[in-house]
């Protein structure tokens, strides 16, 4: 069954699954699958606990120019939740007070936040490494023409989704015409040096399956992508990251409506990989929501699983010593990060 055609978010459509509680009810009732915590303990990993925070991931808003059918954020042009300058200032204070070396800016389309450039410039002044998760099409959209150059000037690493190296599956997942616009945006980035050896401008692509199956070998897919994109469009990039679709939000809706939900959850659980479980990104990441609330990862953020276990739950109470070595909040969706070769915002983990 094909993914639903969407032109607005689940939230704007008033769909029940837009609600995080409704999603959690379904995910945590998966029958016949051991609880993630039980699985983790039986594999000898014990409770998940964070270590030193290396990545400070900030979701600066759910507004986006695309309405991708698998989006875990339920982002879209109708979403108005974006981070204020005041909350960004709290993030900057937190960054100044701790050694976190990398800032990972995501959304929605983070570029659509009116304070995006200011925020990036301020972080850049601190000498932190900045990553921006850009959907590509925004970089070629009206009013954003100068953004690629701005990112290059600030040595921003760009990470972008491109579910396939052909238009067929990319457009099916991300919307009609997205592949063509993405190719145009990558050309702009390549012309600035992005994705080219020794340019100092990193440009990575993200593959995620266009359906209810796990991604294949990251290195093999990277070879295919590099060969095909160069041969057909003259495009280059640095690395391909394979990311497993999480059973939340729009992808959860697809799994249920296509009758794939139970089988997909079973596939995630039987593919549990101990090595991937040891390398999950939440161990070294702190995720900040558009409203300043703190989470273990962007997925927990979308499920509104706010930090607890004694760790501060809002950026205004940022305290590095309470945040490092915090107990991570887990659920059945966590199987998505530990299945097969593992999955994280930086791709495979095992």
């Amino acid at each position, binding site marked *: 069954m094909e993914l639903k055609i969407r032109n607005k978010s689940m939230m704007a459509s008033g769909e029940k699954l837009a609600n995080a509680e409704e999603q959690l009810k379904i995910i945590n009732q998966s029958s016949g699958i051991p609880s993630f915590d039980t699985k983790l303990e039986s594999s000898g990993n014990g409770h998940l606990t964070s270590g030193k925070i290396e990545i400070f991931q900030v979701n600066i808003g759910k507004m986006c120019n695309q309405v991708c059918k698998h989006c875990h954020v339920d982002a879209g042009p109708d979403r108005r939740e974006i981070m204020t300058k005041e909350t960004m200032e709290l993030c900057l204070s937190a960054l100044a007070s701790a050694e976190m070396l990398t800032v990972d800016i995501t959304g929605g389309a983070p570029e659509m936040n009116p304070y995006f450039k200011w925020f990036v410039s301020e972080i850049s002044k601190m000498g932190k490494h900045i990553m921006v998760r850009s959907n590509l099409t925004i970089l070629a959209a009206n009013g954003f023409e100068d953004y690629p150059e701005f990112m290059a000037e600030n040595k921003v690493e760009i990470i972008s989704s491109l579910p396939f190296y052909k238009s067929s599956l990319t457009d099916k997942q991300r919307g009609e015409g997205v592949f063509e616009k993405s190719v145009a945006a990558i050309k702009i980035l390549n012309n600035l040096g992005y994705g080219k050896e020794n340019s100092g401008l990193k440009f990575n692509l993200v593959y995620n*399956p266009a359906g209810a199956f796990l991604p294949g070998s990251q290195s093999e897919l990277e070879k*295919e992508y590099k060969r095909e994109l160069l041969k057909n469009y003259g495009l280059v990039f640095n690395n391909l990251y394979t990311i497993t679709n999480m059973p939340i939000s729009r992808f959860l809706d697809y799994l249920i409506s296509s009758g794939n939900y139970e089988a997909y959850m079973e596939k995630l659980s039987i593919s549990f990989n101990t090595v991937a479980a040891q390398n999950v990104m939440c161990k070294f990441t702190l995720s900040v929501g558009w409203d300043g609330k703190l989470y273990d990862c962007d997925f927990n953020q979308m499920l509104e699983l706010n930090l607890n276990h004694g760790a501060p739950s809002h950026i205004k109470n940022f305290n590095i010593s309470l945040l490092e070595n915090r107990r991570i909040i887990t659920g059945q969706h966590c199987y998505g990060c530990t299945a097969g070769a593992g999955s994280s915002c930086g791709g495979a983990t095992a």
Partner: protein
Amino acid sequence: METYYDPKDLSKFAEISEGAPELWKKFSDWYGAVFAAGALTEREKALIALAVAHAVQCPYCIDAYTQESLAKGADLEQMTEAIHVASAIRGGASLVHGVQMKNVNTKLSM
């Protein structure tokens, strides 16, 4: 209705080892090595397996290698072309035997 083929049986494949564990181990090791990337990519090997699965008409293999082809980055277009290759060989194999028919016909007919 009961059938000989049950999709759930695919996950029981490894139970075949019970009768002959050493042979199963040899098969598994060889199977794993066959499908690892070599002169052909993992995607190309999955597509060959998918085509062969159709030629031998194995429902388990069709299910498994459709999933495997998708996971290795193949799309519907590539999978369909692979099946056409298998079908062309199956059809061609019948048709090429027409040469034997012609030989017999030539020999017997005036």
